[in-house]
C-alpha cells in the first residue's frame, strides 16, 4: 500500500505518521519503502496505524512484543503533539471567540475558565507521566534485559509498582467530553458558528487520539512492565 492511500483512507492519521517522523511530500512511495528509508520499525508502525484507524483492531499481544523504549518513544511524541499543537490550537480558537464576542462576556469567562482547568489537568497528567512513569518503565526494561538491578530501582519497584499507576490512571478524557457537550448543548447559540464548529472538530479529534493513547498505555505498556517487575522480583526472591 502506498503511504498516500493510507492518508486517503483516514486523514486523522496525519498527526500519527508525523510522530514517526513522516512529513508531507512523501511522493508515491509505499509504506514499506518509506519506513525503510526513515528507519521506522515497519511492524510497529503498521500495528499502531491500524489500531488507530480501526477501534476494533487491537493486537495487544503483538504490540507487547515491541520494546518499552519503542512504545514510550511513540507515546512521548504524542504527548508533545498534544501540548504543543492540539491544546494551543484549541486555546487560540477560544481566544478568537473572545475577540469576536461570539458569546456574551460572562459566558466567555465561564468557557475560558473551564478550558483552563482542562489545560492544567492534561498538562499535569502529561508532566507526571514524562517525569515519573515513562522513565520508570524504561528503567525496569533496562534492568530486566541486562540483569542489572540496583537497590534504588528494587526499592522503587516494591513501592511503586506499575500496577498502582494503572489504578490511579486518571481519566483526562472526561473533562474533554464535558467541554464538547457544553459547547454543543449548553452555551447559547454563538455569534460566530464557524469558530465553535472548528473548536468542536478539534475536540473530537483530540478525544479520539487520547483514547487511542490511553489504550496503548493501559493495555500494552503497563501490563508489559508489570510482567517484567514480577519476573525480576521473583528472580531476586529465589536468589536471596
Amino acid at each position, binding site marked *: 500500500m502506498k503511504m498516500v492511500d493510507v492518508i486517503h483512507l483516514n486523514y486523522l492519521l496525519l498527526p500519527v505518521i508525523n510522530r514517526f517522523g513522516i512529513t508531507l511530500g512523501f511522493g508515491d512511495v509505499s509504506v514499506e519503502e518509506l519506513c525503510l528509508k526513515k528507519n521506522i520499525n515497519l511492524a510497529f508502525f503498521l500495528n499502531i496505524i491500524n489500531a488507530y484507524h480501526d477501534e476494533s483492531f487491537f493486537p495487544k499481544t503483538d504490540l507487547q512484543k515491541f520494546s518499552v523504549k519503542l512504545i514510550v518513544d511513540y507515546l512521548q511524541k504524542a504527548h508533545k503533539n498534544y501540548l504543543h499543537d492540539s491544546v494551543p490550537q484549541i486555546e487560540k480558537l477560544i481566544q478568537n471567540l473572545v475577540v469576536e464576542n461570539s458569546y456574551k462576556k460572562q*459566558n466567555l469567562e*465561564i*468557557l475560558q475558565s*473551564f478550558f483552563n*482547568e482542562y489545560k492544567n489537568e492534561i498538562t499535569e497528567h502529561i508532566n507526571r507521566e514524562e517525569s515519573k512513569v515513562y522513565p520508570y518503565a524504561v528503567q525496569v526494561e533496562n534492568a530486566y534485559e541486562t540483569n542489572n538491578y540496583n537497590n534504588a530501582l528494587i526499592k522503587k519497584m516494591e513501592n511503586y509498582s506499575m500496577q498502582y499507576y494503572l489504578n490511579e490512571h486518571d481519566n483526562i478524557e*472526561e*473533562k474533554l*467530553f*464535558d*467541554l464538547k*457537550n*457544553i459547547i454543543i*448543548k*449548553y*452555551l*447559547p447559540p454563538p455569534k460566530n458558528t464557524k469558530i465553535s464548529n472548528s473548536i468542536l472538530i478539534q475536540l473530537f479529534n483530540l478525544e479520539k487520539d487520547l483514547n487511542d493513547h490511553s489504550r496503548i498505555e493501559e493495555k500494552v505498556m503497563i501490563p508489559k512492565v508489570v510482567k517484567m517487575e514480577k519476573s525480576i522480583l521473583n528472580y531476586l526472591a529465589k536468589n536471596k
Partner: protein
Amino acid sequence: MTHKIKIILADRSPIILKGLKNLLNDFSLIDIIKEADNWEFAVRSVNKNTPDYLIFNSNLLNNSNSKKLSSHFNNKVKLISIYNVPIPENIKAQCFYSININSNEEELIKNFKHALEIPKIIIKKESSELSNREKAVVRCIALGMTNKEIADTLFISTHTVIAHRKNITKKLAIKTVSGLTVYALLNELVNTTEIEQY
C-alpha cells in the same frame, strides 16, 4: 422520518414470532401490525393493511404458490424471507432480502436493520429534562458540597444523592463536577458570587 415502519410477521412457530417481535421492537420506528401463522392469512393481512414489509418464513410456501409471489398482493409490499433450512433459490430471488434466522443475535440485528433500511440517525423518545429535585442536586454540586452535605441539605439519603447524580450525568452527558458547575451557571441554577461565598 417520524412515520413508523409497518410490518407483518408470518411464521408457523409461535416461539419464532415472539422472538422476532422482541428483536424488532428494540428498534424504534417499528410497528408490528399483524402476526400470521400461515401464508393465506399473511396475504389477506397484507392486502388489507398495506404494510411496508412482510417478513415471512420461506417454509410457509409450497411449489405452487411460490411461483410468482407478487401476484398474491394488491400493493407494493417488500418481502423479507427468513429461513432456518436452505431456502429455494426462486423464493430468494423474489425477495427484497433473505435472512438466516439461525445466525447469532448481532448478525440478526445487523441483517434486519439492513433489510428494513433503518437509518442510523433516528428520533428516539428520550427525556433529558432535569426534575426539580435533580436541579436542586446540581445546584448543590456546583456549590461544592459533598454527597453527605447534599443529603443533609435536601433531607434525603446519600444513597439517593448518588442515584440522582447518576441520572443527572446520564441526562446531561456531563461527567465532571466542573462541567456540572458550568451547566448550573449557564442555566442560572447558581451564580458566581454564591459559589465564591460558599
